[in-house]
């Protein structure tokens, strides 16, 4: 049984901990409120003015260069607000921007891409409207506790000397007992109220942010439609792929194994009275097993190349380049590995492109560059061939586009007649740490 003293001690501890927790919560709300107000005036306001100016200066040329920079900066702070809304208030705000078209964009193309995106204009509206909203809600979130503390700690002293007003006591001429006790009681109430209310005001700010920074319904509809299309294409493609694998196994390796076991069975029978025929049958069986193995190997290569599992994209494209009849300069700079499905899609896209180079381009050299930046895997393949490649015509290129689209990837081809051809492919993806993911296959 516990003694009363122990009980009291633990009770006191609990109260202290609770108060400390409240204090931390109040302090956090205060800091966040201050951050929002400061950002509104030192970042949002200048950015809004800059954005308006650079838009005005587009006809003069300066704006063409300046506008994308300013809008990109606005996207950066808007993204920060999206992160904070989720972290501070649990308000999820999806990023609404249209994907950047692949390939290096010229200044005009960049400008067009940014200005054609409705999200850019909503961002701009937000930078302006957020200034008064952040001011009011930031003061409410952060200032309630501060003013309350002033009421408790400072205002009574002024009341004693009769020269200062606080809260509802501004109007009073006589700062008597009421002026002394009133601020303490009300101030304490405000501090207490700020514990639950601080986060509420911050959440209100986050919800305001969502009203302008989240994708609109139209954008979502567009996205859903695109996903539906790519998904059905992917499902069709993988179903066709499975049918092909089934047919290959059924007509190839499976049939050969049947013939093989038949031959071995026959050889077993013959062993006694016709050892020579038996030997011949066994030799045939061995040859058939070799063919079956070769077919299985080719099939496996088409499903998931073993070297991709063993060495990742880097090793796999290098291994592939070594088997091609023309020299390929390979530059791969990847600090880690993408997820297996993305890695596989990337590999097959590169393989198909290189096969195109070999088959159609008449090139003497080719080069391949793979890198990862800004959350995208970038693959560029170039050759010194005759050019004139048209993604609309080749079914191979359509296949690659479909493969990439399943992962929101894109492809751009520049191939003037006479060459050179450069194909740029992009896949949004994250990289894992350089650790190699285990697989259960054996080699």
């Amino acid at each position, binding site marked *: 049984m516990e003694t009363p003293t122990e009980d009291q001690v633990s009770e006191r501890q609990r109260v202290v901990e609770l108060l400390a927790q409240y204090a931390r919560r109040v302090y956090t709300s205060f800091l966040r409120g201050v951050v929002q107000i400061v950002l509104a005036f030192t970042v949002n306001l200048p950015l809004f003015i800059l954005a308006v100016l650079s838009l005005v200066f587009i006809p003069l040329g300066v704006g063409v260069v300046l506008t994308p920079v300013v809008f990109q900066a606005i996207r950066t702070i808007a993204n920060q607000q999206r992160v904070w809304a989720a972290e501070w208030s649990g308000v999820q705000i999806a990023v609404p921007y249209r994907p950047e078209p692949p390939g290096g964009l010229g200044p005009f193309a960049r400008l067009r891409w940014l200005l054609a995106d409705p999200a850019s204009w909503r961002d701009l509206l937000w930078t302006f409207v957020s200034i008064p909203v952040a001011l009011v809600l930031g003061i409410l979130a952060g200032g309630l506790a501060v003013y309350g503390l002033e009421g408790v700690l400072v205002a009574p002293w002024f009341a004693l000397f009769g020269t200062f007003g606080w809260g509802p006591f501004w109007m009073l001429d006589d700062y008597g007992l009421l002026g002394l006790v009133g601020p303490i009681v009300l101030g304490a109430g405000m501090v207490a109220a700020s514990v639950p209310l601080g986060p509420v005001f911050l959440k209100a700010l986050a919800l305001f942010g969502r009203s302008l920074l989240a994708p609109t319904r139209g954008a979502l509809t567009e996205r859903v439609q695109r996903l539906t299309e790519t998904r059905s294409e992917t499902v069709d493609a993988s179903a066709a792929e499975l049918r092909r694998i089934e047919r290959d196994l059924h007509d190839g390796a499976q049939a050969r194994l049947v013939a093989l076991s038949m031959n071995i069975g026959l050889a077993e029978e013959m062993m006694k009275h016709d050892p020579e025929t038996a030997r011949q049958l066994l030799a045939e069986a*061995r040859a058939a*097993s*070799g063919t079956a*193995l*070769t077919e299985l*190997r080719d099939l*496996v*290569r088409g499903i998931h*190349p*073993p*070297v991709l*599992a*063993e*060495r990742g994209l880097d*090793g796999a494209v*290098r*291994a592939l380049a*070594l*088997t*091609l*009849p023309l020299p390929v300069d390979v530059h791969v700079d990847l600090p880690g590995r993408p997820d297996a499905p993305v890695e596989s899609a990337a590999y097959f896209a590169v393989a198909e492109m290189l096969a195109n180079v070999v088959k159609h381009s008449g090139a003497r050299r080719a080069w391949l560059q793979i890198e990862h930046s800004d959350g995208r895997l970038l693959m560029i393949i170039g050759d010194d061939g005759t050019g004139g490649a048209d993604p609309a015509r080749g079914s191979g290129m359509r296949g690659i586009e479909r493969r990439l689209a399943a992962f929101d990837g894109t492809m751009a081809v520049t191939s003037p007649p006479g060459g050179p051809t450069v194909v740029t492919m992009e896949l949004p993806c994250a990289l894992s740490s350089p650790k*190699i993911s*285990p*697989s*259960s*296959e*054996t*080699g």
Partner: protein
Amino acid sequence: MRVVIAEDLALLRDGLIRLLGAFGFEVVEAVDNGPSLLRALTTHRPDVAVVDVRLPPTFTDEGLKAALEARREIPGLPLLVLSQHVEQLYARELLSDSRGGIGYLLKDRVSDVKVFVEAVRRVADGGTALDPDVVAQLLTRHAREEPLQRLTPREREVLGLMAEGRSNAAIAGKLFVTEKAISKHTNSIFGKLGLPQSEDDNRRVLAVLAYLGA
């Protein structure tokens, strides 16, 4: 002859032990993962190691990596690497120290027992045993180039067998001609490719592989 075997599938591991045992090899240890392989190779220092490329724990090229690391510690340690698939990339890595004593074969080749055992012996003696698939890829890759075009079909065949690591005697046996005839072919090949002649079988193979860029 002392052998270390690394293969994770029990069925294949037992098969290899039985097969090599039947041909008079002494299997000093058979392991089933990368770290044990490295330990076994550095402690036993066998006359030859027969290694599967893909091994636990990662099921990537763990076996190849462990074997190459052991070979860095014990220069010239004879390695015969087996795999379900052959890659020029791996062949290149295996041959990179140009010391010989390297074999790289598809697992399928085990089924031709005599040829396989001959390959193990050759590697143990410091020779080379390269899979016909790898050699075929090398030759296709260079097929468009001028010097190879000047070879006769027979010479190209001989070049391929040479690149696999076979001696003149073995090539003669395979093509059913005399060793002298092969010798004439090889001299002609070396002349056309502009490679220095060499009596030493092994050095000759390495020169051919270097020429083919393996």
